[in-house]
């Protein structure tokens, strides 16, 4: 850049630089065409299936079977499929169960996890690193390893047939990652802040509620978001502990959707998938940067 400026400055324009100048824009144009094409293909692969899904949810059964695959819906305001999915498909009940299981366990995981993270990272005592490792070990335990004893336990205690097994299990399974992430965030807070508060005479509870919590407020929100997606999208636990149709969460309900209508009832199936997708889409639309940051930070979970 500076070179062209210098050569152009004295008023004598050397002809030799002309072809160079002309080639550069041409190369830039080619480059941006290539870039545009690659990006278009990538976005097509990611976005097209979702658009196709929405289009499909507006089609009627004959349209599915008789029209070409790539045809557009004949009636753009045909929401019958959605109505069928929610009423006949019981999707409303399933969504309610999901909400009833996910939010209490999310609240408990966060509450317990933040307190534990504070006790493990800010407070000083013997054995805290061992305890942290104990929690960490839980990250790699596959759900299958605890499923059968839990099933027996809930059966013996008589919790089977309610949403409690889900709430309890989700709380416990979320803890390792929450404790691990919260401990990491508390580690990032300068110790001097807590030491100064001690000198000022703050009690440990005061320190937790008025110092610790506000300091990691953003982190708590991120962890909650990450846990929300893990719990909301869970299938294994929900499938094991929901033994009756009216207890099913939205994921289990959706899994059995095809069984109920048979493989062929396309419209309601598409509508049900759409409704399930929209819930996460709505959250992602507003909080995508935070979701991306949080989920990649939680990648240890695999």
């Amino acid at each position, binding site marked *: 850049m500076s070179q062209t400026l210098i050569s152009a400055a004295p008023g004598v324009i050397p002809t030799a630089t002309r072809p160079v100048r002309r080639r550069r824009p041409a190369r830039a144009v080619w480059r941006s065409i290539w870039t545009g094409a*690659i*990006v278009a293909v990538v*976005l097509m692969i*990611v976005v097209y*299936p979702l658009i196709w899904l929405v289009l*499909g949810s507006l089609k009627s059964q004959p349209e599915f079977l008789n029209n*070409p*695959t790539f045809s557009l819906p004949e009636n753009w305001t045909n929401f019958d499929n959605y109505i069928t999915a929610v009423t006949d498909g019981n999707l409303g009940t399933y969504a309610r169960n999901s909400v009833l299981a996910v939010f209490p366990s999310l609240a408990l995981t966060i509450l*317990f996890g933040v*307190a*534990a993270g*504070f*006790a493990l990272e800010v*407070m000083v*005592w013997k054995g805290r690193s061992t*305890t942290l490792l104990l*929690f960490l070990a*839980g*990250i790699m335990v*596959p*759900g*299958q*390893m*605890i499923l*059968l*004893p*839990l*099933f*027996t*336990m809930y059966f013996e205690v008589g919790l089977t047939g309610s949403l409690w097994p889900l709430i*309890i299990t989700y709380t*416990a399974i979320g*803890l390792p990652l929450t404790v691990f*992430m919260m401990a990491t965030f508390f580690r990032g807070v300068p110790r001097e802040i807590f030491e100064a508060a001690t000198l000022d005479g703050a009690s*440990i509870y005061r320190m*937790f509620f008025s110092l610790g919590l506000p300091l990691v407020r953003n982190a708590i929100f991120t962890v909650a978001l990450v846990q929300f997606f893990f719990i909301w*999208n*869970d*299938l*294994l636990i929900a499938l*094991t502990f929901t033994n009756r149709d009216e207890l099913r969460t*939205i*994921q289990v309900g959706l*899994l059995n*959707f095809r069984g109920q209508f048979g493989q062929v009832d*396309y419209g309601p199936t598409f509508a049900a998938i759409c409704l*399930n*997708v929209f819930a*996460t889409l709505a959250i992602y639309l507003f909080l*995508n*940067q935070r*979701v*991306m940051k949080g*989920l*990649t*930070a*939680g*990648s*240890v979970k*695999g």
Partner: protein
Amino acid sequence: MRHVLGDRRAIALLLGPALLVYTLVMLVPVVWSLGYTFYEGNAITGFEPVGLDNFARLVEDPSVREALWFTVRFAVVLTVVQVVVGYLLALLYVFVLRRASGIVRTLVFFPVVLPTVAVALMFQQLFESAPRTGPVNALLEAVGIGGVDWFASGSTAFWVIIAMETWRSMGFYAVLLYAGLVDIPEETLESARLDGAAGPRLVRHIVLPLSLPVLLSSVIFSINGTLKVFDSVLALTNGGPGNQTTPLTLYMYQTSFTYGEYGFGSSIALLLTALCLMVTLFIFRSSRRDLTKA
């Protein structure tokens, strides 16, 4: 100061609930599950001791061998595919799109948060061959290759699962690797460019060696996650046709809940845990620094 920050009652109060729930619902069941491996039966019929029979069966049962082979094959293939695709996307973000990559990054990441069941049902429809032709087969027919009945054989179904998981996770690995690529100092790249390295050569000799640590942790995270694959397979193929796409997780589930064999189910779960444990130990040894950064 020690007095306040080392207050035993406060520690018990803050740590207690988490430790209690964690111990009761995770640690105790893990030990309990180990105990089950010496018994056979289930919660409803009761248990009887069988000694080491479950382990003998673990070695002999051809289904276990098939499931183990599927699990390992799936983990290796998917790890390679999703990390390579993620790396290519990350290179695209960092070196081609640069500042403008934000919107693409956000869009490509979106499938990561979608419920697996929903994605699996969607892919079933995408790859459908009868009675209705799905978009993938329609596209193949339009090009003149002809449609494929994707779910009729284990080998094609395997690739549909790989395709689906890649679609779901490529944005995730792209962002993970993007963070590593952005950390490469601009001066290093600039001096390499002055020395005449550009395009593939720059990537091959400068970028790749410098992003090796983050690449390695992505590979290990990916293996650890893919070994536990369950919901995508269950929702997409349910292990079929036959048991050709059944991973250990699904086989354990079927053994336990379809046949009510908790003892053998626990043994399979133990095998799976041992597999994950080996990989996880490897994580801690090779990338401790990245983990604590989180």
